[in-house]
């Protein structure tokens, strides 16, 4: 190459590299803006809310006076709703995932189911609220109950559980299945004793992510008409006299953490906004902990499994 041509090429390269640097800086800045915004959110809530967090905050009912208001009915309600959601979504989601991976024939029916699941994952959560309002609350007559809310959220997270189950099952090599069949096992025995145990950690990850999403969901639960001011608890599931177990709580009115927070956020008084910050802080910690656990599980799995 002659000298002027070399100089020209070098200046082109230098220009290209300058753009590389500019873009790298823009990239870091964008990443930082995203992370710092969320850090600001977290710190803001912590600074405002932490002074309010005490034992009483967890053991008091909501109140007209901000200082003595607590989240007792909210966290109990959230827990109960989560129990219903988990108990419904986990078996159905896992069963659906197993069916699609292990049993489903390649036909239009299966295609319809698969397309459906993908589309359901993109349906806005408030639409699930409308479904629940029309179906669970009025058609099935469940009212504004823990059961109605739990079932709504179960439908909402079902696609997450199904997709996680399918991914976990797909990661199991065909040789595992063939080994089981070669020993004379039936399809169900293979699923029961091989597929399900091996895919359990993956399914668990999906369930945790789904529940973390469900616990923060506000819109569908507001839509079914959950009350925002609940100063009592549902009757406890365990009773002192026979039959010891009670399912009355399933049909009790309730409130949940995000609704309590919404209620406090919408109040004009600054004192209630402090409560909102405290409730938000606890809510974020809960979802972060659940998601963190799931992500940690997943990354650990990816590293440890090598069939």
């Amino acid at each position: 190459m002659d000298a002027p041509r070399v100089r020209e090429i070098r200046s082109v390269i230098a220009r290209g590299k300058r753009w590389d640097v500019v873009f790298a800086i823009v990239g870091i800045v964008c990443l930082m803006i995203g992370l710092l915004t969320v850090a600001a959110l977290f710190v803001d809530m912590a600074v405002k809310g932490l002074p309010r967090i005490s034992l009483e905050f967890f053991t008091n009912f909501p109140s007209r006076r901000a200082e003595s208001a607590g989240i007792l009915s909210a966290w109990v309600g959230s827990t109960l709703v989560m129990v219903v959601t988990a108990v419904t979504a986990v078996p159905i989601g896992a069963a659906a995932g197993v069916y699609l991976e292990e049993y489903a024939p390649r036909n239009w029916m299966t295609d319809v189911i698969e397309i459906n699941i993908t589309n359901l994952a993109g349906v806005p959560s408030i639409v699930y609220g409308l479904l629940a309002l029309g179906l669970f609350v009025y058609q099935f007559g469940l009212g504004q109950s823990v059961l109605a809310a739990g079932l709504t959220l179960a439908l909402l997270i079902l696609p997450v559980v199904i997709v996680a189950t399918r991914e976990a099952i797909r990661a199991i090599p065909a040789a595992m299945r063939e080994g089981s069949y070669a020993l004379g096992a039936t399809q169900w025995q293979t699923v029961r004793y091989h597929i399900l145990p091996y895919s359990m950690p993956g399914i668990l990850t999906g369930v945790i992510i789904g529940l973390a999403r469900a616990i923060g969901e506000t819109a569908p639960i507001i839509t079914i008409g959950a009350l925002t001011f609940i100063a009592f608890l549902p009757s406890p599931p365990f009773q002192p006299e026979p039959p010891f177990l009670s399912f009355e709580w399933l049909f009790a009115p309730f409130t949940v953490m995000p609704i309590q927070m919404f209620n406090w956020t919408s109040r004009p008084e600054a004192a209630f906004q402090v409560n909102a910050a405290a409730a938000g802080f606890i809510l974020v910690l809960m979802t972060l902990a659940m998601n963190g656990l799931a992500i940690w599980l997943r990354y650990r799995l990816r590293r440890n499994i090598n069939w």
Partner: protein
Amino acid sequence: MTLPAAISKRLATRRGRVLRECAIEFMLFLAASLSVFTTLAIVYILVSESVAFFRHVPVIDFLTDTQWTPLFDDAHFGIMVLVSGTLVSSIVALALAVPMGTIIAIYLSEFSTPGIREFAKPLLELLAGIPTIVYGYFALLFVTPILQWLIPSLPGFNLLSAGLVMGIMIVPTVASLSEDAMRAVPAALREGSYAMGATRLQTALKVVTPAAFSGIAAAYILGISRAVGETMILAVAAGMQPNLTWNPMEPAATITSYIVQVALGDLPHGSIGYQTIFAAGLTLMLITLMFNILGHMLRRRYRESY
């Protein structure tokens, strides 16, 4: 000729075993088809309540009226009022989330060291899980005051603040999915570009991004769906007054925040006010569906074929 006893016994149980296997398969099939029933139920509920609604309100009024006052004596049902709020807030959100998410995705996939990527990816996934009500709180009580300091005329409830926070909320989704799509581009394609003397940015923009376009489009579509369907941020921070506006500096109700507003009140089952939320919900579903179909067409057009 007689079979040994053990074999004949096993053959006898075969019928029972086949039956049991069939029963189990049927149960699993039922679980899988629940998703189809869910969709059908959503369509049924939305359409049946909307049909009742449209018996009172002509479709043409619904689409062209410029007022939304369903609970007033002089009731108007112009859905465009709510649609405008939804679109404006979504546009604000996407104007932030799409460029930011794409830049972060390109940075993580093509520029950053593996260490930064390993650190940032899980963090992004973590952020995608923060409850939206928390973002709503943040929009109303943190971002709006800052914006008001910058723009003193800004009202306490506005679409701008809600939209921006919504954008921040969507960034992790767009970034994470786009990054996945870019990482899936084969190394051979990247090397082909570098071997021609291209820089990182040239390779990223001219080769990797077009090759991953279908996956990136899917990420954008999901981002749009989330913006259009987002509820709590808008219910908290955008005010819930119906307001036909294209100005993000104003307060306005969206389709979703209107549904929340009605649900918070106490409307009797079967009343026209009750039916409006289903008509609004149907509109929301149709808008989401439209974007999904658009995305599907885009992806089919630019299918990966490396």
